[in-house]
């Protein structure tokens, strides 16, 4: 019985986090001595579908019905559950993305499966138990959950698993399912994408600003540094509460939890709620004029200094580095 992985696309393209999910699902399939079937729903080109094979899918089910071109939570959940049934898959894996978080519980309920959301590691299989580590308490801790049902749904946190290029290929098959009309009640009217910016949950590098920047007019240098590094911009809660930056940039316990390779915090003191949201960052750099700022206690690298002095110098240093790299 294969493992099934749902590979969501954004505007017909797969993001890096989806290749992470495929690689992760492949590792689960290998551990279960079985194959990996991917299911793609929407308008994805043959070239892009082939990439799923490269990262480990043995077979790809391609659902391209007109009605399913745009994401509809209820209908997509039905398609994924039907695919799991027709493949005989006991394990369904998807991304813990914004859409995945709406899908996983519905697929779980349809399949009578326990749902491990926010997974950050491969399942531990011992003594007939199936346990997974997941984020909890908004980044302040992890919980190990055991799924006791025969069927299991796992939603993987982005940036938690390395993409593995297997260099293999998959056979692509068209797949169609009859989805009941009442699954299409929610109607998509418009998608607004900010194409010029790197999305925060997907970013490898995040440059984040806090109250120390004194006002929204001073974000130019944050954006310049982010652009140079190919980073997303973020902010602390007081900054989004004050309306200096949009809520979608708020990182912390009651905002977005991020896990980039590099998190650069500028003028953020490091309140416990903010630290919760960034605890899974691989490397943390803190720039703050207060040497007693709590953020330095969790940082890997730090500069004690005024942001208005340090950041322009850092921008010059990054430019110099890029010129020689």
């Amino acid at each position, binding site marked *: 019985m294969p493992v099934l992985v749902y590979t969501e696309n954004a505007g017909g393209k797969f993001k890096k986090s989806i290749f992470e999910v495929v690689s992760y699902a492949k590792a689960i399939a290998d551990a279960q001595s079985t194959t990996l079937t991917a299911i793609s729903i929407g308008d994805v080109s043959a070239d892009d579908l082939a990439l799923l094979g490269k990262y480990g899918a043995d077979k790809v089910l391609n659902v391209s019905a007109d009605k399913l071109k745009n994401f509809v939570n209820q209908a997509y959940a039905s398609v994924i559950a039907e695919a799991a049934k027709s493949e005989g898959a006991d394990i369904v894996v998807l991304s813990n993305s914004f859409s995945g978080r709406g899908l996983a519980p519905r697929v779980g309920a*349809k399949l009578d499966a326990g749902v491990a959301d926010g997974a950050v590691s491969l399942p531990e299989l011992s003594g007939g138990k199936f346990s997974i580590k997941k984020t909890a308490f908004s980044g*302040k801790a992890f*919980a190990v959950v055991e799924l006791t049902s025969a069927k299991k749904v796992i939603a993987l946190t982005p940036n938690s698993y390395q993409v593995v290029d297997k260099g293999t290929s998959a056979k692509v098959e068209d797949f169609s399912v009859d989805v009941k009309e009442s699954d299409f009640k929610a109607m998509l009217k418009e998608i607004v994408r900010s194409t010029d910016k790197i999305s925060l949950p997907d970013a490898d590098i995040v440059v984040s600003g806090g109250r120390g920047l004194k006002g929204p007019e001073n974000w130019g240098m944050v954006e310049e540094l982010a652009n140079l590094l190919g980073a997303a911009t973020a902010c602390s809660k007081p900054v989004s509460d004050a309306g200096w930056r949009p809520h979608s940039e708020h990182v912390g316990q009651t905002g977005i939890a991020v896990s980039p390779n590099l998190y650069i915090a500028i003028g953020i003191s490091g309140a416990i709620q903010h630290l919760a949201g960034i605890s899974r960052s691989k490397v943390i750099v803190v720039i703050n004029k207060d040497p007693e700022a709590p953020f330095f206690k969790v940082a890997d690298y730090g500069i004690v200094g005024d942001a208005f002095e340090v950041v322009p110098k850092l921008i010059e240093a990054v430019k110099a*580095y890029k010129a020689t790299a």
Partner: protein
Amino acid sequence: MKILVCISNVPDTTTKITFTSNNTQFNAAGVQFILNPYDEIALARAIELTDGGNGTVTVINVGDVGTEPTIRKALAIGATDAVRVNAVAHDAWFVAKQIAEYAKANAFDLILTGRESIDYNGSKVAAMVGELLDIPSVSIIKKLDISGSHATVEREIEGGKEILSIPLPFIAGTAEGVAEPKIPNMRGIMSARTKPLQVIEPVDVALNLEVTAYETPAPRGQVKLVSADETAKLVDLLHTEAKVI
């Protein structure tokens, strides 16, 4: 309009999270519990939507008697009445089953909850209730307007948003942007004491998940400080030592 708001009782955001019994139990000693911040947003929007006698807001919580201060807080903020399902909230599936059972017997036009609770962060209850009631569910909404029998919602996606039109009834998980949390006033606090709080017994649920252990993140090493004049050195460290650029 009848609105049901699902609320959760969670550790205050300032809580330092620790565990006991060989890291198998959450250490609740000395922890202040609060109304889940995202649920506060759901509640605030529900109160706005029913403003001026245009409907009722019922809050529901699955918890033991210890969650009643949080339920009273929701009543003080402005909920019409409350229901407590008398059981420890085992996990999202258990909670969703209880809420769906109650909602089936009491037709609601709209069900709201926070995008996630800040303890287990699952974002699962809304979609599970949606599936159990066979109604649309929409996760992580940033805007909610209702006109007649339809709602327009903005849903967060990576790097943008989707605008959807959804017929009532449906269930949604709310985030910042939907409403500003409301602070209870003195009249609210006084009236909360006498507002109806119904306690009902749970239905049986076939469980499929157990939390078996907890871990706290590994501590980081000592911070390496670089002087403000040595930004080039920092860039070099990030490249050669940390290997992140």
